[in-house]
């Protein structure tokens, strides 16, 4: 602890912070503050939307803070496990809107990781990724919905416990569709690939919307209602109920829906965990290296003996498989599936998550998913709610004497998610194309390319036969 006169206070602070024990205490304090703050927020407060927007994101981002700290790996894992398995559920029991948010984050993180395989690992820009998600969701919904589909009418309805089997069915189906989609686009590059995949994505949505005539498969634009849910064992419900009563928490709403959401939360965490592990394994394998080769220079990869077709199809299939599994979870959780949930803006949102976080890096992608989902589902919505709460009491902004009542009703922040996404994408591409948590290799790629000569990569190869 020698005082070096040449060292700035900031560096001294950082050095002090990087001592494990200090870091540990700081992190614990941080967690404590955030959790206690979260639990002490009162819904009846006027500024509740604002407060919850300020407090919840730090809580959700705490795993990243933990991961970035210089603690021992086992302690990091324990802390994160405690957060995920104990802290979050408790917060969820206290206020199930946070539980809802976290489940959505899990879903989108899984989707972002899947897209990351296609775009980040293999470098194939897929703008229709949401189609695989739709395949998974519809596969479960079609077989369990009470809408008047051909399945319901002929009695081929699947019981709730088949949900766990259908996760695998969703995986397989989506992977199949991924291969089907990948086959025709093998030769395409860059822009063309993007547009074709966009076309496929839209086609799936239009098909879902129109597949109610002449045979009703998907019930068209009215969507599938009452999608099946995995059965809840009674001990689970009782368990949740007893935790709530021992802690004296009054549950808003009924116990069963809360227990159902909790079940989905844990299923989601498990699926996300599996996806993370799978993605990591792939990244560090021969397949991952093949993908990197394809991404960086396809012709050189072929020259080095990388089986292009197989690897590209594998990328599509794997990405699709992740989306398929998540789709089944989503359908069961929402208990309602309609074609409008699978439109272009969803594909772009997921792309935004991958880009904002940092293409290729697993940690970055999850961070991107958290940021974009929170932005979309919490920040913008809460801004609207806050605006409304202020309007209710006819709040007047002090210095400029502006009546909140005069804010035009059409200018509600929650509706302007496209604006935010668009701006986010443009700014990220202009200033930080490698993302917030860039994978070192990608960053190098992008920096090098920026300085290199422009090379006009054509969109089709001359390996086309015929004509």
């Amino acid at each position, binding site marked *: 602890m020698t005082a070096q006169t040449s060292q700035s206070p900031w560096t001294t602070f950082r050095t002090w912070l990087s001592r494990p024990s200090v870091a540990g205490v700081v992190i614990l304090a941080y967690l404590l503050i955030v959790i206690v703050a979260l639990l002490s927020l009162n819904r009846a407060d006027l500024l509740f939307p604002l407060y919850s927007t300020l407090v919840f994101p730090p809580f959700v981002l705490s795993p990243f803070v933990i991961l970035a700290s210089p603690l021992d790996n086992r302690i990091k894992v324990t802390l994160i496990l405690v957060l995920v398995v104990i802290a979050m559920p408790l917060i969820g029991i206290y206020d199930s809107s946070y539980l809802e948010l976290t489940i959505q984050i899990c879903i989108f993180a899984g989707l972002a990781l899947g897209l990351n395989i296609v775009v980040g690992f293999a470098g194939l820009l897929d703008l229709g990724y949401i189609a695989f998600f739709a395949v998974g969701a519809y596969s479960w919904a079609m077989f369990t919905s009470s809408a008047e589909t051909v399945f319901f009418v002929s009695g081929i309805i699947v019981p709730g416990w088949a949900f766990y089997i259908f996760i695998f069915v969703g995986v397989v189906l989506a992977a199949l569709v991924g291969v089907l989609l990948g086959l025709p686009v093998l030769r395409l590059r860059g822009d063309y690939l993007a547009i074709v995949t966009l076309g496929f994505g839209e086609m799936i949505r239009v098909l879902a919307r129109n597949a109610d005539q002449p045979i009703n498969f998907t019930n068209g634009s009215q969507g599938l209602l009452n999608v099946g849910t995995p059965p809840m064992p009674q001990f689970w419900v009782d368990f949740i109920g007893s935790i709530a009563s021992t802690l004296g928490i009054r549950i808003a709403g009924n116990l069963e829906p809360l227990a159902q959401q909790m079940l989905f939360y844990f299923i989601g965490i498990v699926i996300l965990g599996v996806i993370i592990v799978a993605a990591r394994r792939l990244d560090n394998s021969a397949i991952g290296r093949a993908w990197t080769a394809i991404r960086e220079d396809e012709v050189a990869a072929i020259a080095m003996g990388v089986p292009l077709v197989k690897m590209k199809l594998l990328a599509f299939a794997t990405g699709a498989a992740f989306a398929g599994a998540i789709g089944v979870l989503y359908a069961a959780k929402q208990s309602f599936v309609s074609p409008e949930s699978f439109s272009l803006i969803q594909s772009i949102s997921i792309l935004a998550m991958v880009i904002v976080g940092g293409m290729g890096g697993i940690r970055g992608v999850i961070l991107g998913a958290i940021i974009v989902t929170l932005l979309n589902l919490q920040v913008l919505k809460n801004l609207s709610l806050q605006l409304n709460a202020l309007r209710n009491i006819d709040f007047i902004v002090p210095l400029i004497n502006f009546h909140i009542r005069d804010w035009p009703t059409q200018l509600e922040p929650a509706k302007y998610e496209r604006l935010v996404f668009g701006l986010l994408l443009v700014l990220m591409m202009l200033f930080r194309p490698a993302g917030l948590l860039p994978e070192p290799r990608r960053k190098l790629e992008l920096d090098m390319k920026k300085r290199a000569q422009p090379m006009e990569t054509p969109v089709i190869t001359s390996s086309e036969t015929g*004509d």
Partner: protein
Amino acid sequence: MSSETLTPPQVPALDSPWRRLLDSFPVRYILYPVGQMVIFIAGAAGILTLLSVLLALLVPEPRPNIVLMDQIGKQLPGMIISGISIGFVYSMVALGYTLVYGVLKFINFAHSEIFMVGSVIGFEVMQRIEDVGFIQLWHPVALVVTIVGSAMIISGLLAVLIERVAYRPLRNAPRLVPLITAIGISFFLIDFVRAIEAITRNDFNLTYPTGDLSYLRTPIPMTFGETTVNVRITSIIIVLAAVIMLIILNYFVNGTKLGRGIRAVSQDRTTAGLMGINVNLMISITFFVGGALGGAAGALFGLNVGTVTPYVGFIPGLKAFTAAVLGGIGNVTGALLGGLTLGMVESFLNGVLVYFPALGQRYTDIFAFSVLILILIFRPSGLLGERVDEKV
């Protein structure tokens, strides 16, 4: 240095009055392109009519009491006319995509929103004229020219601005980056326009104030044999405006020095720069022209349809992109061909599918996407496009 010294000595027999006539300005730049369009439209209409007749022969009565052949006979003129008018709209937008792709080898995803901005500006201009009063006193041509002209200028400038701010810094970045930027701009524009309309009008369903202008609303009956079709005057305006603009564009690209510069940049950017062409200026001009055409298409579309919203650009933009690819992206004639083809096929499908309830007209949109996908898979260079070989 005139070009005469560089051309080989002409064989005297070829220097005939015929030749001079064919090479003269009016023929080359007006008659020839218009002739091409007419022949193409006639050909497309002919083929589609043939196909419809074949279908009617195969399936005479798809629904009880409906004889398909009669219905097609009645609808034929209408289908062709509406096909032409929407086809020209697609063509104009497609040109924007194709011009930009030609110079930068880059798909300007934001072009559909430039189309939308054109339609919104058209509305704003018309609404302001209406607010000032006496809109009936304006000469129709002057009114349309003002509306479409302002849409063109503002859309063109917007396109140049976008290029300057978002695309130019990324010219050397890998493929993915400008594409994503374009998507981002597209999204941003949609909600930005919506926000502006929300602030200024608290509503974003923008209805063109054609109420006082009966000449815009009264249809013109045209008789073809037994059937009389009521043609909307806005359809005719679209066709006329489009043809005029296409002729001007054709002259600009093929007959002027600037046009030659643009063609040079699209062939080989670096060499063009070495030859003394101001590459950045050429690119900006290209964006302006493409944007202006898109804006004009938007204003004309708005006049035709009557009500526009900030979301009106997405689907036509996608279809116009299909048209550009269909014709061969990078190829100006191809964009025209592709747009007209897509418009006519769509129109015919709409007219025929209505008699097949099992399918219905909703499948028309599926068709547009399928065309896009099939072309990109089997013939990515399009109808008129060139094969590009990859340099290793």
